């Protein structure tokens, strides 16, 4: 079976775009069989099909996962693999959109978004505050503000700020979409 590897990066807030992309790949005859950090997807040639992909960042224990996967199979969902805390599922696309969701309630989706913010985004920003920022400040105030060594930190800080802003906007959008309803 022909295989190919594709390098593509999706950040913490772009899992829905990733789901869509995997679905489009399957529709063009390539189904994903593995994914590795930082974004290396292994695809296998297949007959084009209409398949829905869903990603979940869960906090379910390993013992509960098996039960969950068994329940998923009844609904037509197959568990594929995991990457970096994210579980990948797929199922044959159904005419009725509500049958193409793992989670049919918004509060579960919001819970997951909060989990991602706590377990991934928070550490990301903490590393910036605790490691990158102090070094940048030290370099700027250390009299060697224009050294090559200093520039490495400036570039890193720049990357961090851009990434944090981009993800911040992403999280905000997700919150707006799924956090709307009250009472």
């Amino acid at each position: 079976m022909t295989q190919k590897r594709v390098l593509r990066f999706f950040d913490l807030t772009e899992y829905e775009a990733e789901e869509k992309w995997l679905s489009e790949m399957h529709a063009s005859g390539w189904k994903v069989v593995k994914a590795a950090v930082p974004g290396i997807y292994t695809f296998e040639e297949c007959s084009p099909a209409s398949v829905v992909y869903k990603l979940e960042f869960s906090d379910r224990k390993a013992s509960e996962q098996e039960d969950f996967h068994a329940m998923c199979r009844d609904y037509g969902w197959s568990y594929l693999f995991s990457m970096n805390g994210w579980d990948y599922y797929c199922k044959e696309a159904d005419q009725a959109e509500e049958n193409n969701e793992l989670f049919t309630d918004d509060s579960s989706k919001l819970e997951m978004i909060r989990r991602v913010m706590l377990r991934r985004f928070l550490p990301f920003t903490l590393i910036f505050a605790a490691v990158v920022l102090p070094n940048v400040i030290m370099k700027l105030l250390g009299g060697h503000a224009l050294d090559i060594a200093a520039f490495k930190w400036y570039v890193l800080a720049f990357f961090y700020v851009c990434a944090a802003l981009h993800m911040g906007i992403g999280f905000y959008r997700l919150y707006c979409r799924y956090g709307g309803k009250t009472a």
Partner: protein
Amino acid sequence: MDKHIEKVYCPMTESAFYILLSLQQERHGYGITQRVKELTDDHITIGPGTMYGTLSRMEKDGLIRFTQEREKRKYYLITPLGTEVLNREKERIRHLYRIVQEDEQ
């Protein structure tokens, strides 16, 4: 009734109501989804993620209990506490219906 139970289940969400209603008979997750589709004429669909989460929560809260596992499927049934909560919700719905009827007179 426990304060926590009252806060979460009185009133309860529509999905929770249908799930509890369905579990007056021993069923497994997918069976409950099918029953709810039947009862609501396909208007309410409960996905596996939502179903698993709700069943776990209800079991932890004592509203339902695990009865048996057959072919890797876990079956559940409503408990006396669950019946008490369900009856309270039914009463609330009856009251709501009465008010609507009166308002339309």
